[in-house]
């Protein structure tokens, strides 16, 4: 993975959001460096989606205070693939792109998510995992500096999710955007992120770098230790936690 440079491209200062549907934020500070993969972990209602939506500038109705600096060129992957059902797959990918080579780039992005040849399908003809891959292609074709993903694999089955993890890792390596991944899946966060930020009741409760050894039993042990730590942070008792995969 390309080494994250020290330059922050997202800077959130003392962000406060009140009375939003999903949660409140109560003074959040967060920085994401160029090319860095940050997982935002927390229980339901802790405000992680609220933070993502604030950075994505989707919280028109929210009231609050604080500063957000984020790149113009950002892209969002939602939990639902959010494809327009009346547009074919390729037209969904290049939606809103006016450049002459958009179709060509869209085809390339679809090939990257292993959907080459499905350009002319309707979204309704694809499986859930395939639809989410189209959504990934739609984000990547814009070459975003920042990719915001709001529980993108939450609606997928366990096997598809593992395949999506591998795919996302590869795509992030190839395009090196900064990523903010909102999830409640501890394993997913450890597997994918460079750094894990735990949000609790609208505040940053922990900010933990993920530095696992490359492979072998050492990695497995470090993985399990980090997993225990994070679960404890999230208030899951050791007896409740199932053993690490």
């Amino acid at each position: 993975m390309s080494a994250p440079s020290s330059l922050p491209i997202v800077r959130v200062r003392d962000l406060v959001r009140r009375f939003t549907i999903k949660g409140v934020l109560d003074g959040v500070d967060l920085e994401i460096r160029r090319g860095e993969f940050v997982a935002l972990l927390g229980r339901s209602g802790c405000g992680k989606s609220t933070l993502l939506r604030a950075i994505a500038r989707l919280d028109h109705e929210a009231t609050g205070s604080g500063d957000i600096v984020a790149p113009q060129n950002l892209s969002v992957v939602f939990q639902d693939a959010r494809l327009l059902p009346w547009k074919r797959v390729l037209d969904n990918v290049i939606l809103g792109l006016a450049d002459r080579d958009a179709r060509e780039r869209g085809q390339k992005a679809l090939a990257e998510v292993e959907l080459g040849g499905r350009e002319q399908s309707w979204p309704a003809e694809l499986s859930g995992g395939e639809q989410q891959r189209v959504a990934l292609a739609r984000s990547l074709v814009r070459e975003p500096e920042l990719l915001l993903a709001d529980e993108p694999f939450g609606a997928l089955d366990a096997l598809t999710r593992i395949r999506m993890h591998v795919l996302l890792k590869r795509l992030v390596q190839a395009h090196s955007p900064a990523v903010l991944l909102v999830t409640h899946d501890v394993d997913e966060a450890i597997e994918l992120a460079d750094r894990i930020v735990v949000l609790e009741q609208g505040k940053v409760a922990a900010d933990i770098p993920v530095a696992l050894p490359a492979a072998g039993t050492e990695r497995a042990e470090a993985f399990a230790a980090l997993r225990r730590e994070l679960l404890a942070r999230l208030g899951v008792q050791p007896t409740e936690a199932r053993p690490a995969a």
Partner: protein
Amino acid sequence: MNAYSRVAEPAAPFELPPQGLGVSALAEPPAPAKTQPHRRLGIGAADPLGWLLGPAILLLGWTIGSFTGWLDSRILPAPWATIAAANELIADGRLQANLAVSAWRATQGLALGSSIGLTLAIASGLTLAGGYLIDGAVQMKRAVPILALIPLLIIWFGIGETMKVSVIALAVFTPIYLNTHAALRGIETRYVELAETLGLSRKAFLTEVVLPGALPGFLLGLRFAVASSWLALVVVEQMNATSGIGYMINLARVYAETDVIVVGLLVYAILGLASDTAVRALERRALSWRRTLAR
């Protein structure tokens, strides 16, 4: 059945509840659960020509009734008399001429009413100011039956073609407006958010997201509108008209030509069915992206 009972018999003592079984239940051995298929709750696949059964029975009853003389020909002429009357009307060109006039009126009214309905729905569905200005007024208009407006329209436009087309347009306009407006306002927020995060321009948002998203609503409105246009046509052609299918029917009433009246009614039925089929075909083509229950 006998062989079946014999096989089931040995199991019976174990399966029977200790008491409370009626005689009929004892006579019927309990069927083995494994082989029994689930009760089917759906209605199954329809035969494409199945809908013809009802009309065919009606036609048969009509023929028999006329043949036996049970149906007085002054009340309902025999099918063959109706066909003869239709042939005669076609031979002297009356049917074609009146049909052309009626179809032209309906087409004009449909085109005018749809354009107005669509324009107002877009203005009122996509802007707050348009909604405030237009929607309440249209809802009021909707509460007034279209037939009640005819006296006013006669005073405004006279009894000529303008009045007739206006009545049809007014009848058409309401369903187009209501369904298109509801569809426009019903575009899901998640698609609006998507358009925002993709940085779509206002124009692209309208042409790529909003209008295609509202197309199903418009087409549903169009189906209602086509039905309304024929209804309005029948009404205006029976008042002060000098041409058209409705005039032909009205004239036949004066001369007690029941067969001509029946021919006119059949023409209306065929027109209505044909136009509805055409709109449905258009719907299937335009909305081929949908995977619905009834394909």
